[in-house]
């Protein structure tokens, strides 16, 4: 297992060398973090092509802006802010807050669903492959309907498990705004997926 202190020192060393124009150090830095960036982009875009473009845009930005990284935040936080910004650049502009306000209201447990619970098991058996594929499609469709500002908060906080403070810092928004977007995003996705997540009983 990697020692945290030596790992951090090695990372700082790579950043310093890459900043000085050392190509091998930049490449090592990129190889160390590209999985995180690509997977984050996959979770947000739900599309390999777009995730690949986002990965490229992000490391071009890192290359251009590395001298601006002052080390006050974690390198990963800085990297998340760049990849998130690239995801946000891809969004369609619209008045998202107006659209999302409805998700502040208390829902009934199952009442807003026409269908009832569908048994879902991620452990694949041939008989369940169709259900699993259908579920994946539903998960993709639901999150893609979520405005990008909300989607990135949901992915950072609930999937990547960043703290609310770190999400606010990555997005450069207030903690209150972060919580509000998270609340609405969770409510929106829950409602979209209600047939799959509500109690059967």
């Amino acid at each position: 297992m990697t020692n945290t202190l030596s790992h951090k020192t090695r990372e700082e060393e790579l950043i310093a060398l890459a900043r000085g124009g050392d190509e091998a150090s930049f490449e090592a830095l990129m190889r160390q973090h590209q999985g995180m960036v690509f997977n984050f982009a996959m979770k947000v875009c739900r599309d390999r092509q777009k995730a690949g473009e986002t990965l490229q845009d992000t490391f071009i930005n890192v290359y251009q802006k590395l001298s601006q990284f002052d080390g006050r935040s974690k390198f990963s936080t800085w990297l998340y802010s760049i990849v998130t910004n690239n995801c946000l650049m891809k969004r369609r502009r619209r008045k998202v807050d107006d659209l999302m306000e409805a998700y502040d209201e208390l829902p009934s447990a199952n009442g807003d669903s026409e269908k009832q619970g569908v048994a879902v098991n991620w452990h694949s058996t041939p008989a369940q492959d169709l259900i699993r594929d259908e579920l994946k499609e539903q998960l993709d469709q639901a999150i893609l309907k979520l405005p990008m500002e909300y989607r990135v908060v949901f992915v950072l906080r609930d999937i990547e498990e960043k703290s609310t403070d770190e999400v606010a810092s990555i997005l450069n928004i207030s903690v209150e705004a972060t919580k509000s977007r998270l609340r609405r995003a969770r409510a929106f996705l829950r409602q979209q997926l209600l047939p799959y997540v509500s109690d059967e009983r």
Partner: protein
Amino acid sequence: MSQTNVKCEDVYRYLIEDLDETLDQEARTMIRTHLGQCSNCTSVLKSLRKTISLYKAMPSAIVPASLTSHILETIKKSGKST
């Protein structure tokens, strides 16, 4: 907020915002008490947790080696041209 006469609307915001993970002891007790008596809020909480767990279960993707090489080449070229 008093523990008696707690309404679903009061609990909902706490529920969806924190999923009772970061709440102080008093709020947590209030929510637990309410959940013990309210099947609607219990179902909402369960379905919220399940929604998140479905998204979390998405498997990790590996960056194709050809993509890494392509990006590094692009960056090297851009570095030389500026």
